[in-house]
């Protein structure tokens, strides 16, 4: 756990409301205070980074304090940007008479299910590439686990599809040139639309341009995936409370992440009640808590965990986040395997 903040990429996940943003922000401040250049990124459509830092944060990186920057991904804007990039690419790739149909198709794609999520993923991949160059550490304050897991499993599927399509393009081109070699001497290939498309030099060039664009995009996801599955580069921190639903959600996340070979580098058990509470109501809560603490150590044996107590007041502003950072720092150095 001491190496937690030596990673290049840290994902902080868990069920909504367990305190992900608080933990992620405090860790970011802690790492920044040790001299590392840190970027904290919110991918949740309902952002709370700005609220917790009590500063306005937008789609562009803003400086929050020494060595600390933040940004909140605007998923709709990201999707618009992607579609307009594709439209721009298209203008050099198709005949002007096709512009209208292409635009119509792309506008449909913009509002198709999954488009916004896909756009966020592309930005996440871009930002992962910034870890190790512009920043020493990029922390993702992620959306609730279900969304995050989908986000993590996507690159694999995309790699398969894109590679499949590109391979097909290559094969098709190879077969085409083979066919050209077999043409009757001194004769042009037949005039069917397909042959026409292959014979035409400018169209060949166009297809290579398309291949190049898609290959670049695939490479980006491939790199992101590579860092994500490298335990020395990236880690996943699960935040949960000693309560039934966060434990169940964490178990699901744990299973899925393990299946995708993404290492859980630790768990933060957040909002633990102090043991010296009195009164029937609070004693009953405490009894329930100790039951769930046992369940956590049973279910997640072998995972490192740090405990953070329930605080007297809710946390916002850099001062209070630094206090939580200190609690985390102490807990990290004494963290134990469950």
């Amino acid at each position, binding site marked *: 756990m001491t190496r937690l903040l030596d990673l290049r990429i840290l994902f902080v996940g868990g069920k909504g409301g367990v305190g992900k943003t608080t933990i992620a922000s405090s860790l970011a401040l802690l790492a920044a205070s040790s001299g590392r250049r840190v970027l904290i990124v919110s991918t949740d459509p309902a952002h709370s980074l700005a609220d917790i830092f009590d500063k306005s944060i937008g789609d562009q990186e803003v400086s929050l304090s020494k060595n600390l920057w933040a940004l909140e991904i605007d998923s709709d804007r990201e999707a618009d940007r*992607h*579609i307009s990039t*594709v439209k721009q*690419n*298209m203008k050099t*790739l*198709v005949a002007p008479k*096709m512009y209208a*149909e*292409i635009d119509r*198709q*792309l506008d*449909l*794609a913009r509002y*198709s299910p*999954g*488009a916004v999520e*896909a*756009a966020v993923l*592309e930005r996440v991949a871009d930002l992962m590439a910034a870890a190790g160059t512009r920043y020493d550490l990029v922390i993702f304050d992620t959306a609730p686990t279900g969304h995050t897991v989908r986000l993590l499993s*996507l690159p694999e*599927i*995309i790699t*398969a*599809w*894109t590679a*499949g*399509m590109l391979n*097909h393009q290559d*094969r*098709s081109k190879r*077969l*085409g040139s*083979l*066919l050209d070699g*077999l*043409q*009757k*001497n001194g004769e042009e290939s037949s005039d*069917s*639309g*397909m042959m026409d*498309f292959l014979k035409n030099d400018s169209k060949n060039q*166009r*297809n290579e341009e*398309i291949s190049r*664009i*898609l290959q670049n*995009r*695939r490479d980006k*996801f491939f790199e992101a995936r590579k860092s994500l599955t490298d335990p020395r580069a990236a880690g996943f921190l699960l935040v949960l409370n000693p309560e039934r639903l966060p434990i169940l959600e964490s178990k699901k996340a744990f299973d899925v992440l393990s299946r995708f070979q993404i290492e859980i580098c630790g768990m933060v058990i957040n909002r633990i009640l102090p043991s010296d509470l009195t009164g029937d109501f609070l004693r009953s809560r405490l009894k329930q808590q100790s039951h769930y603490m046992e369940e956590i150590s049973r279910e997640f044996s072998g995972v490192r965990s740090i405990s953070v107590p329930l605080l007297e007041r809710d946390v916002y502003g850099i001062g209070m986040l630094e206090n939580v950072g200190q609690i985390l720092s102490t807990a990290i150095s004494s963290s134990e395997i469950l």
Partner: protein
Amino acid sequence: MGRWKRWLHLADEFYKAPYRGAIAREKRDQEDLFMLLVFSELMGVPNPASYYTLELQPILLENFHDWHTRMGMEKSPLDNFRCC
């Protein structure tokens, strides 16, 4: 064209002609597989990569016409994918 040259040309044709047909067929099959992959999404099989491969659209539009005529459909069978 000299007699020798004509003979060479015929010999060349003799060897190449059967392959030409086979390769053209193979290439067409590849095109059909590609169409199947891409349009399967419109038929209800989700393709999570489609958002990232939108640049393939111009190739599709051009090949789409060849495809639907080859499949025996005079017009585009898809309402949301217009053609001729």
